[in-house]
């Protein structure tokens, strides 16, 4: 595909967009709700096709994809979409004459990234809800999901299907990229480098929604009952294993947090040991149920390197322990402290003690600007306070262990509304 092809597709969806905007928002929400209901149904042919086709190019194992789709899609229903519209655009946004008129951009370009299907699905549907036709560039790692989503929309509503175009060109094809970025709203996810490069290419008049890569963590307080450690570890293992820890909602560190008034670290140290052992057992068990997928040499190299460095810290007298599979499929590193260290992903988790919630905030500060979600448990009555502190740090989602890979469709990713960030509101004062 070249720049001419991209221009043709863009022109085509622009033409279809005028018909899209003539529909009421209620009609659009209901139609796209039908699409979502299809994706929420494990037996739907689109979901089955994704399950069959995604593992090949992404390297994910089929059992993991099945579990990941269930966790991510089962609750993204028509009702959830309608609730999202109401909460994000206003209670009367589906009425004929809302108090605050909301309009859409003439066209939306989406630069897709990664290989996890849910963000792709939502990225393609959100502009259509608002009445903006969408042109999307596939991610190099996943050309399956965008095509299937576009197909599912066209099957439910052929006219709506003409409002979506999937394009694919080399990342070095600057001419095609320039054409794509001519859309009036541009959404993109990618590494900081990718985002910086895109920012330099977008014209100033465009609405721009760029999201760099993010990471998530878990914070487990020492009020967690001993009897609950195993269950919590199992839930965290699920959060780690789904999408092989490659998503921004995958925890990379579990902090074992002391909550005593004195700030003594003893309880945190004990909890760190117990969580590490329980996580190792849970990850080993999860491997048999939903094996980790294929890994590239660079990923395996990173895991081996971080294991070796942890072994050296242990040999140097630090309270560090590596618990790991023989191959690279899972790794738990019991750390001696909360210093920020590389996260090789692919089911590599660090468990680090922090003496207090204040120390937790200090540990998270260096990554605050990249923080997505925090799984929280074991803080007892202090839970609301801890959640507020984490929100103040920049976390856009705080949930229980085991729920990290199941965000509601209305999750304020990067702190923004899913629909409102792509909408144009009008305040009428007369």
């Amino acid at each position, binding site marked *: 595909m070249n720049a001419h092809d991209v221009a043709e597709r863009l022109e085509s969806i622009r033409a279809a967009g005028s018909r899209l905007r003539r529909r009421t928002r209620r009609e659009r929400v209901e139609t796209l709700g039908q699409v979502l209901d299809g994706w929420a149904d494990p037996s739907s042919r689109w979901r089955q096709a994704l399950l069959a086709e995604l593992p090949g190019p992404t390297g994910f194992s089929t059992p993991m994809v099945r579990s990941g789709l269930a966790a991510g899609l089962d609750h993204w229903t028509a009702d959830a979409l309608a609730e999202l519209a109401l909460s994000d655009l206003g209670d009367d946004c589906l009425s004929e004459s809302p108090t605050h008129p909301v309009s859409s951009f003439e066209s939306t370009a989406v630069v897709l990234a990664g290989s996890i299907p849910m963000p792709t699905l939502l990225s393609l549907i959100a502009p259509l809800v608002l009445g903006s036709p969408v042109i999307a560039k596939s991610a190099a790692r996943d050309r399956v999901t965008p095509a299937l989503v576009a197909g599912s929309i066209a099957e439910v509503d052929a006219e709506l299907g003409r409002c979506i175009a999937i394009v694919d060109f080399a990342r070095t094809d600057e001419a095609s990229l320039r054409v794509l970025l001519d859309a009036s709203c541009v959404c993109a996810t990618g590494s900081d480098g990718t985002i910086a490069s895109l920012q330099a290419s977008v014209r100033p008049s465009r609405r721009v929604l760029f999201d760099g890569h993010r990471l998530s963590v878990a914070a487990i307080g020492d009020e967690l009952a001993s009897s609950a450690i195993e269950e919590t570890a199992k839930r965290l293992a699920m959060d780690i294993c789904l999408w092989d820890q490659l998503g921004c909602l995958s925890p990379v560190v579990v902090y074992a947090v002391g909550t005593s008034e004195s700030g003594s670290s003893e309880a945190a140290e004990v909890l760190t040991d117990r969580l590490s052992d329980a996580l190792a057992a849970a990850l080993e068990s999860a491997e048999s149920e939903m094996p980790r997928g294929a890994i590239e040499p660079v990923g395996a190299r990173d895991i081996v*390197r971080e294991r070796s460095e942890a072994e050296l810290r242990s040999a140097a007298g630090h309270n560090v322990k590596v618990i790991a599979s023989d191959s690279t499929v899972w790794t738990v590193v019991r750390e001696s402290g909360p210093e920020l260290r590389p996260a090789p992903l692919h089911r590599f988790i660090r468990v680090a003690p922090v003496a207090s919630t204040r120390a937790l905030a200090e540990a998270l500060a260096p990554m605050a600007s990249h923080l997505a979600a925090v799984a929280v448990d074991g803080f007892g009555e202090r839970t609301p306070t801890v959640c507020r502190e984490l929100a103040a740090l920049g976390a856009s989602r705080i949930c229980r262990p085991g729920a990290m890979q199941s965000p509601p469709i209305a999750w304020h990713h990067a702190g923004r509304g899913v629909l409102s960030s792509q909408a144009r509101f009008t305040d009428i004062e007369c």
Partner: protein
Amino acid sequence: MSADPARSELDDAILDWMREPDWDYDEARFEALAQETFRYQYNHCEVYKRFCDGRGRVPGRVESWREIPAVPTGAFKETELRSFPPERTVHRFQTSGTSTAVRGTLYLDSLKLYEASLLPSFRRFVFPELESPGDRAAIRVLAPSSREFPESSLSHMFQIALAELGASGSGFDVESGELLVDRILTNLVESAASESPIALCGTAFSFVHLIDHLSQRGVMIGLPPASRVMETGGFKGQSREMPRAELYSEIKRVLGVSAERIVNQYGMTELGSQFYDSVLHAPTEPRRKLGPPWARVVIIDPETGHESVTGQVGTICVFDLANSGSIAAIETGDLGRAVLDGFEVIGREPGAEARGCSIAADELLGRDST
């Protein structure tokens, strides 16, 4: 030299090998010295001893130098890995990095092995035609001198190379952090006019910098055919990256030195020896990295921990006898594959897309993940 007789004996045996004019890749000789070095370092570096104990690989229980536990280069940032008492430290080299990043440190109680190792390799792979001890060549170095950067192992290497192999007019062309473009240009123009070949040596990024400057001035120079370039290092912490093929193409365009006369050096602060592209030493053979007989490479499959089969990508591990004072077995963290009697380094494709949307940890920490 070390006051420890056992260490002195070991170093003498290694030095003897380094001083032999003809290289002999005797596997049995290397194996014996590697096992002896392992035994010495196991007994004199407590951290390394515990590391090896943890892996169950201790002297007398490893059959081959390939099984000797290798420490990752990152460990040099957090741990003082030396096989001699701290008070005997005479020099330290530090890895490059920003002022805020933690830098790795190599501690040395003697520079003898270090210096004895670097020269024969530099001569053999960058100046194979300098056969007699007194032969010299014009060398300009696009890096600061070791007087200015005593902690830089690269500057130290160039200082030694210039002293031993540099003809009159050789020298450093980076001072106070500034690439002295005018002075370089003068030397290049003189070289071209007099048809006297010149060798330009420096970091890959210094060449990018030089090419940018010369291109801005519209300068293109046809250096004499026997000229050469030796470049090393990556683009860690630099404002932009340039794929190696593009860099070589630009060097050809601006300086007139073709890829067949550009030698990439593979080395690092944590190693006493260096490896070089084979292009000048063995110009009719496939380009690959070669090193001296006293430093060997094994490519390890990270999934199994065993040696990769030929051609399979794995982690480059080096066993370097020149590292007798620190740790000889080093896990470089670079990926590579075996090629004939050498190896090639597999670099990260600039801008390669991630599989997920979780931030690459190295990106967050500002580390080089190449």
